[in-house]
């Protein structure tokens, strides 16, 4: 995988203390104590904005609009009303419930489909023989560079008015309320990078493994499902987390391709900022609902997360 450093290196470096003389160690301990305190202070400052949002999301509407969140330390008052407003079902203006559902419904296929397609394609590029393989691979590799802005306008036209009398994927009669538009778009934008990364990873698997399986009479499909998929799981997980975050946090693709009925939370939050910019309590609780899921993924899968992030950093 395209990592600058491997996990093993991270673990090694953390577990081997260097050897020093006693006086150096004492001096180091002193400066490291100062460093620890400075580092901790910076970390706390870094977290204050997020903390402020969390506190605000639990404050009553009147308080949020008239005083800063830090006043809770002198004048504590909390409520769950903001979360009730934001998560209540139904179609009330301030409810984000539908958008939360949309975010989930958009994200799951938009992660599963590109990864499955890319794993297959990466296998073909890595272990199959056919004419034009290198030219094709370089073409896919080069298309990573294309920023999605370059594709949005013509792609939207294809969805609205497809050639050959195909069914339009956008508009009032679109299947699944226009969800296919989002699933397909996210799949397209994920593919070049996913194929490239998974291919790199697959090439690292020893060729003898494939050869001996072939000698034993296994075909490509068996090799792919029985040998490759299990070996590829760490790479697939890393890319999966990256793609999950990308889709969940995406605004541009959703703004361009989603109808109001299926728009995800990011789109709804932006419109809340525009239309109800003074409803700070809704902004705070709404934003926090949208943050909490990626934060949970981040806290529980930090290691994969770093790899995935690094691997996918040129996307978009």
């Amino acid at each position: 995988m395209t990592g600058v450093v491997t996990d093993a290196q991270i673990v090694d470096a953390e577990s081997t203390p260097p050897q020093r003389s006693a006086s150096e160690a004492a001096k180091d301990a002193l400066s490291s104590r100062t460093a620890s305190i400075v580092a901790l202070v910076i970390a706390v400052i870094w977290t204050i904005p997020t903390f402020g949002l969390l506190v605000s999301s639990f404050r009553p509407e009147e308080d949020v609009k008239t005083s800063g969140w830090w006043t809770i330390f002198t004048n504590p008052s909390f409520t769950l009303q903001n979360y009730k407003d934001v998560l209540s079902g139904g179609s009330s203006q301030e409810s984000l419930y539908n958008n939360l559902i949309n975010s989930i419904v958009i994200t799951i296929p938009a992660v599963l489909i590109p990864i499955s397609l890319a794993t297959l394609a990466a296998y073909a590029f890595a272990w199959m023989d056919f004419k034009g393989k290198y030219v094709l691979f370089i073409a896919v590799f080069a298309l990573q560079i294309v920023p999605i802005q370059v594709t949005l306008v013509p792609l939207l036209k294809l969805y609205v008015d497809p050639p050959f009398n195909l069914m339009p994927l956008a508009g009032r009669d679109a299947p699944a309320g226009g969800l296919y538009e989002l699933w397909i778009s996210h799949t397209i934008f994920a593919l070049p990078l996913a194929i490239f990364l998974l291919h790199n990873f697959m090439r690292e698997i020893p060729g003898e493994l494939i050869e001996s399986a072939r000698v034993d009479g296994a075909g490509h499909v068996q090799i792919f499902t029985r040998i490759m998929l299990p070996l590829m799981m760490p790479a697939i997980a890393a890319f999966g987390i990256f793609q999950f975050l990308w889709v969940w946090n995406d605004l541009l693709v959703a703004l361009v391709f989603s109808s109001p009925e299926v728009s995800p939370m990011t789109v709804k939050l932006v419109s809340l900022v525009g239309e109800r910019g003074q409803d700070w309590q809704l902004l705070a609780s709404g934003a926090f609902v949208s943050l909490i899921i990626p934060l949970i993924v981040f806290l529980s899968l930090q290691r994969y997360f770093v790899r995935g992030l690094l691997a996918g950093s040129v996307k978009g």
Partner: protein
Amino acid sequence: MSTSEKFVQMVLAIVLFYSVMAIILLLTQRLRSRAGERVQAAAFLGPSLLLIGIGLLYPAIVTAWQSLHGAALFDPPFVGLDNYKTLFTNPQEITVLRNTLLWVVLTPLFSTGIGLGYAVIIDRARFEKFAKALIFMPIAISMVGASIIWKFVYDYKAGGSEQIGLLNQILVWLHLDTYNFLLTDPWNTLFLIVILIWIQAGFAMTILSASIKAIPDDIVEAARLDGVGGWKMFRYITVPSIRPSLIVVLTTITIATLKVFDIVQTATGGNFNTSVLAYEFYRQNFVAGDQGLATAIAVVIFILVTPVVIYNIRQMRKLEGR
């Protein structure tokens, strides 16, 4: 659609996708001949190549062609390079270019600088894991969420009323004049840039911290025995040792910055002269309805991003090769 209908549609789509894939694999798995291998390759690659061809290659070509045309929705006239001329001469677009330049220069420099500094301070300090997690956390947050978080920091209340934005309250505590952070250009762009630096510094810190830890101990020890310490250690040992990672981090953040759209959209809606190229693309296309100019902007983003991506990938390969 109701909630349950949406989930039904989702499950249907997933089942449909995997059934089609399974049928393709089942049909081709018996083939063993040379020609069979070609059919199998087509089965494995076909769906991806089709999607990439229709969804990336074709639109990119159409966009490049469209950027040479005028604004009309039907049969726009061919205008040559006029859209590009507008982009580089119209005062409003020049502000956009100025802002983009500010973003692209300041964000990578400060994110990487802060990330590097922090990686050095935190190395082997106590609470290392905890502190790093806190700095790293913003990267998991959407830029929309981050912008809302920072609205609570930058908010400004006019007159004598109580401030609810943290920064203005700090100004009040210090007996200084309050300030409307997002109103006056070009300073408002700088405050928007802070949001992205806040997000990206954690990324830089994580990557750089890992490469600092990968510097062999004997090099550090040898330098220490020669009496090298503190600043000199940082300047002559740490930085040269992690140079390739530094470049990867700088270029990666540059790429992300060139495409920044969400922060401008959420924090100011592109008002008060805060627009950048990626935002201007969206505005020209979907608000102003000038597809010619919008596609020209997209092409410019593409041209700007390409050398950085190529350089970034080459550095990555070098790192892997070591």
